């Protein structure tokens, strides 16, 4: 069964307050090399066999546009395994 992984993150132009806080915590721990930390969410799902990969991707994109991501604040990345 194909597995779909969708990664939703805040758009790069928006301040990720949570990411900034975690990045600063890593700096406190001595990981000074860390920059550009962004926090998002990962959504995994299974789809039935027999659907073409392009079709799966297209449907997942529609799911993101309609529900899984907020078009105002978030962008998404789809991976089909």
């Amino acid at each position, binding site marked *: 069964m194909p597995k779909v992984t969708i990664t939703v993150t805040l758009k790069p132009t928006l301040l990720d307050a*949570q990411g900034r806080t975690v990045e600063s915590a890593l700096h406190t721990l001595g990981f000074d090399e860390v920059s550009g930390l962004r926090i998002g969410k990962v959504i995994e799902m299974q789809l039935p066999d027999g659907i073409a990969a392009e079709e799966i991707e297209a449907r997942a994109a529609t799911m993101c546009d309609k529900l899984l991501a907020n078009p*105002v604040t978030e962008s998404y990345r789809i991976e089909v395994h």
Partner: protein
Amino acid sequence: MSPAGTLAKLSTVSTVSTGEWDGTRRPRVGVIVFPGSNCDRDAGNAWIENEFGTAVYLWHQETDLQGVDAVLVPGGFSYGDALRAGAIARFAPIMNEVARFAADGGLVAGICNGFQILCEAGLLPGALMRNEGLRFICKHVDLRVETTATPFTALYSPGDVISVPVAHGEGCYTCDDETYDRLVAEDRIVFRYCAPDGATTPQSNPNGSRDNIAGIIGGPRRNVLGMMPHPERAAALALGSADGSRLLAGIRAALVAASG
């Protein structure tokens, strides 16, 4: 059994005739109740206790607004804020009716989670993000009334500073530049967070909202309001402020005027 029946029964308790409308026809607001709403009773009670009319509570699974005169989408954590605040509530059956009511020019006010829901539903532009400081904020804030050209704020004066509580973790209003320019050009920013003297300073912005925006107006007839602060929690002096009751009075006045 849907709890709406019970709620509706309770909601009809105190309805005093106020003279302007006769005893048979009083403005009736519909308060939408989602699983996880927690300001629904506050909203209904503020309306009833101020003697503005009657209230009916509408469960999210219902498909009929029961002929209400205005709709309040209350605060809370609908569906446990699953995915994003307001993301799931917009698919509730009752929201189709709310959208239709709004499109027809009916008065709809979304407060806190209600604002988030109206944005997610596309009835208002923009989105509410996590507060910039990441903390849940629960306190009284000062708001400057930016426009009185809405039914909700018609009884205020432009520049009025009112004290109303906020209680949210995701109240950082965000929109793209195009939307922002349109909101400004069309006089659609209704409230801004401000200092007690009315100055909109960064310090008076509790959550990082763009340009201190606390509430906006939309809809075909400037009939859809969304705001993060809770006017229903500032609707009696006993609650520390009655500044919010004038907003509800504005709804009432608009309904009375429309009834001819």
